[in-house]
């Protein structure tokens, strides 16, 4: 017996949910942040070592003292920049993870077998899962489908800032 088109669609959604979940897990397992922290820590360690050595040798040599000052300042600046970069990277990972979570949840709803076709996920329910700029993406896609006026409304928050919202 041939599987029904509905069964095929649900299976495809389940597969896509698993694929996106795998991409999310890859993002989470990325070692960049950890590596940046380790480099920053190594630089701090080296700066400390240079300072200890300098107390023994620098005072007698003005040229060496100048080079020591420049090295310690550069080390400190790079270490701070690495920490800032690691922080930014951690936040971007977090954002990517949450966006992927939203897609996984939506696809899992579409793959659910206990709801009749067409009632598994509405645009409004999908929009309720958004955490950031997905509203803008939703609006752009709805426009391509010629649904902008019917399904995506601009909600004014009262402070003059238009905010994307999904209409009924």
């Amino acid at each position, binding site marked *: 017996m041939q599987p029904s088109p509905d069964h095929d669609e649900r299976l495809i959604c389940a597969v896509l949910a698993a694929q996106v979940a795998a991409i999310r897990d890859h993002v989470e397992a990325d070692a960049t942040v950890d590596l940046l922290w380790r480099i920053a820590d190594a630089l701090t360690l080296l700066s400390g070592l240079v300072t200890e050595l300098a107390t023994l040798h620098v005072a007698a040599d003005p040229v060496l003292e100048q080079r020591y000052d420049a090295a310690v300042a550069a080390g400190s600046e790079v270490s701070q920049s690495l920490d800032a970069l690691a922080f930014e990277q*951690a936040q971007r990972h977090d954002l990517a993870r949450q966006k992927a979570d939203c897609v996984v949840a939506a696809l899992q709803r579409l793959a659910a077998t206990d709801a009749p076709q067409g009632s598994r996920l509405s645009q409004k329910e999908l929009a309720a899962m958004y955490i950031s700029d997905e509203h803008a993406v939703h609006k752009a896609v709805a426009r391509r489908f010629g649904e902008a006026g019917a399904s995506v409304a601009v909600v004014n928050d009262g402070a003059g800032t238009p905010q994307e919202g999904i209409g009924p």
Partner: protein
Amino acid sequence: MPAILVLDDSATMVMSLSRILKKAGYEVETAADGKEGAAKLAGGLKPTLILTDLNMPAMDGIAFIKEARRNAATRFTPIIVLTTESGTLKRDEARAAGASGWLTKPTEPAELLATLKQLLPAK
């Protein structure tokens, strides 16, 4: 030394925030979600400031803020929301729950520390 309670379900975010705050001279306590954060407050933890994410399992940031405001020890403790949420509706919801400040990810360490400084009680 001011103690800051950090709540985020991302272990990398918690570690990253802890590094920045410790390097700036703060003591840091952490929790993986609102439920763990609320349990720490109920257990007697009295942070000088709370930094919380919004989207967390078990208990989300809004529910945690309401819980913290019900606790006499943290009724007036500054609470900063640090979140990927950029919508003004969520921001209003957080403010109504009792949040004192709002930062949208990604933010920079300097902006985070400046916001903390603004909200921390003067010594």
